[in-house]
Each structure stands twice: as C-alpha cells, then as structure tokens.
C-alpha cells in the first residue's frame, strides 16, 4: 500500500510563478490536510478538507488555494509564489473527525521541498 504520495519531491521556483503541489492517498480517508514545516516553527496547517467537495482554511492559508474534487486527491496551488513560501510541504490524511473527537491519527506523505527564488 502506497499510503500518501506527493509530487514533486523538490522544486525550485521563480518568484511570481504559479505551482501546484500534488497529493494522492489510497486509504479512502475522508479528511486531508496540507501543512508547511519551517525550521523552529514545527508544522502549521495551511488548508484542510473533511470530505470531497469541501475545504477550509487553516492557520496560514494566505497565498495558497486547494480543491477537493474527489476522495483521493488534494492539490495545493500557489498562484504567485513569494520567497516566504520557501518551505517543506506535507500532505496528510485521516478518517473524518467525529464531532467532539480529536483522536484520529493523521498519516503523512514524504513531503515536497519548495524553494522560491
């Protein structure tokens, strides 16, 4: 079982260009998430989706957009990249949270290392 795959593994991008980071999971999880990891800051949530067709904003959503057309795919788009978006991006998935519960394990992909120059 592949779990979660992310593409590309790494990318160097010129400022002002757009880019889509891809994420696919094969665990039939309803919920998916995008995080960025920056040195000394841990992981921060960018956007999430509890089920296909719905998305929500996380802690640091500005400059990013997501879509969730089906259960398996959750692409993250940078419309016009800026150097502060240089980071490692992780996609994750989990069973959909039941209202009031918070114990579902989130499974993480291997990450995409993005450098914006």
């Amino acid at each position, binding site marked *: 079982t592949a779990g*979660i795959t992310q593409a590309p593994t790494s990318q160097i991008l010129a400022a002002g260009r757009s880019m889509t980071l891809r994420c696919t999971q094969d665990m039939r999880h309803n*919920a998916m*998430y995008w995080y960025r990891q920056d040195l*000394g*800051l*841990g*992981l*921060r*949530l960018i956007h*999430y989706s*509890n089920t296909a067709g719905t998305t*929500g904003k*996380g802690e640091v959503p500005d400059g990013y957009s997501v879509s969730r057309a089906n259960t398996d795919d959750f692409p993250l788009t940078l419309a016009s990249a800026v150097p502060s978006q240089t980071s490692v991006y*992780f996609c*994750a998935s*989990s069973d959909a*949270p*039941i*209202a*009031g*519960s*918070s*114990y*579902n*394990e*989130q499974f*993480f*992909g*291997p*990450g995409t290392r993005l450098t914006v120059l």
Partner: protein
Amino acid sequence: AQSVTQLDSHVSVSEGTPVLLRCNYSSSYSPSLFWYVQHPNKGLQLLLKYTSAATLVKGINGFEAEFKKSETSFHLTKPSAHMSDAAEYFCVVSVSPAGFQKLVFGTGTRLLVSP
C-alpha cells in the same frame, strides 16, 4: 487556545542510556495528545497517542509517555536509546473545536544518539 511547548530543542544521549523528551501543553478543550517522529528527509510517523483511556501510553519502538493533567505534561521516555532513534520528535495537541481535527505542533526536539 491550544499550545505545545517542547522544553528542549536538542537532547543528546549515549546508546543504551534512557531518553526523556519533555512536553507541556495548554488546551481549552479536553485534548488528545500525540508524539510523532520524523527521520531525516522523511514524513512524520505516529509514535503513540493519548486519548483519555489510560494515562500511561505505550507506543512503537519501546517508547512510552505519561499524561499528567496536574502538570499539563506529556513527556516521552524510552529506557534504552538505540542509534536508530536519532530523529526529530514532535509533541502534538489534537482538538476538534469546529468540526475538523486541528493539530497543534510543538517546535520539535532533535534527539542525538552517540555510540
């Protein structure tokens, strides 16, 4: 509001000696608590989780953690370190305040294991 404080950015131990990674949390809700491990250039893997069933939680690879509500702590321990334990460890508070699961990560503790 929720927050996590990992008290040490780096911990160095010798192989075969005990490991202690410290974590304190703050949460307005009744939280679930996790420890995740990240090996170099890899994604995150769940070590263990606390969900109110038992205060002492056992995880993979010999790790365990004890939830102490009075101290708002969830420290990670292992009796004997192995070279393969060298990695970054994240303490995480998980809450579900508005219909989605929110993970709040600590800033991480890098565990160094020397021969």
